């Protein structure tokens, strides 16, 4: 980047200053809302970072990949073997797997945005309160989880 490029304004294009919703909300959305909860909260974050067009395909791929992995593991009988080890009902175990996939999605998306989270932390930026995206992500994610568990139980 030349000196002229460095002195070209970067922030004038933003409607609001770039920032992130707090990471506690992100974790909780992934925990209670599974991969869809993690994906929706992350989409809200990428929107605030002004990177929606660039990051959304990756977030969708991670979310879809989490469900596809569960379907694949179910097809291979891995989930059934894991279920017999864990005990409990199939529905209950599926809830645990979906939640674990939510956390894995959180981890993958967090890695994608790690530089931003760290930059916010080291520069002392107060994160945005994540109630609205968090509640929306948990509700939509929970509904998606119920639908997925019902679907996988009947296949």
């Amino acid at each position, binding site marked *: *980047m030349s*000196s002229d490029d*460095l*002195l070209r*304004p*970067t*922030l*004038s294009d*933003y409607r609001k*200053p*770039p*920032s*992130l919703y707090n*990471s506690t909300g*992100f*974790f909780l959305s992934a*925990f209670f809302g599974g991969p869809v909860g993690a994906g929706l909260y992350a989409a809200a974050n990428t929107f605030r*970072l002004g990177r929606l067009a660039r990051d959304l395909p990756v977030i969708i791929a991670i979310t879809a990949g989490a469900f596809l992995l569960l379907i694949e593991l179910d097809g291979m009988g891995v989930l059934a073997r894991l279920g017999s*080890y*864990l*005990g409990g009902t199939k529905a209950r175990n599926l809830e*645990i797997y979906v939640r*674990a996939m939510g*956390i894995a999605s*959180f*981890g993958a998306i*967090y890695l994608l945005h790690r*530089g*931003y989270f*760290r*930059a*916010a*932390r*080291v*520069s*002392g*930026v107060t994160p945005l309160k994540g109630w609205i995206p968090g509640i929306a992500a948990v509700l939509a994610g929970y509904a998606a989880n119920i639908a997925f568990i019902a679907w996988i139980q009947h296949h």
Partner: protein
Amino acid sequence: MNDTPQSAAVIAEQAFYFIERRRLEDARRVLSQGLKEFPQDADLLFHSAQVEWLADRNKEAEETVRQVLVSDPFHPPARQLLASILTETGEFADAELLLISLLRDFPESPDLYGRYSRLMLRALHLDKAEQLAREGLRYDPENDECLMAAALCETARSGARPNQGLEKLLKAHPESLSSVHALVVALVDAGRINEAHRIAQGAMRGDPANEHLVSLVRELRIQNHWSMKPLWPLQRWGWGASAVMWIGGIVVLRSLYNFAPEVATPVSFAWLGYCIYSWVWPPLIRRIL
């Protein structure tokens, strides 16, 4: 103060003397007397804005600094102060335009590159922040603003790994507040709370009037409190530790229920207690201490 008439420059000098020593009330008194006599003097108005800014009264500081710029639109310190105020109040785009206009007027000022870099870091533009710090260091390889910005960028980029930017900053400015700040941030990021607390405490003893240091030491004291020690893995590895705690908890507890049911219940209660403790205690201790 004596009653002999003084020039605005002398009053500004007195005010600056008090500001440097963080004697804000004395500075405010001198300036209000001076401004009665020289109400339009740009330097007196600028120092007034500085006093309000240091007292965290951003709105008043902004109003006063804008008065300076009405009478002297070029006044570089006033433009720099306005950029700081705008950054603090979240008006990043306006702060950026001001810093760019300053850099166009002073294209070889490493301080300005350092400040622009810090603004970009705050606006989460890590790449540009790094490039700006690098550009500033081309003009002065030991400039503390740029070294600090570079160290913070490196901490943001690579976390607990060895930080060359920080090493350079500490070597060039071992006593500066910037070094302390960057070092403490890097240590906290690496989960080395105890060391961060000690360093910040040492710096605070040297500059007890610095409110930023006082609040930093307070926060680190909370994080370093003996009752927070059990939460060290969560402080060190953050959400990664939370995820491991949850998934590991389920696997370990299920295994115990299958293979050693007699210890499963106490362990599950201990695990649940730890989870609740990690949620409830940190906000509580912040209120207590």
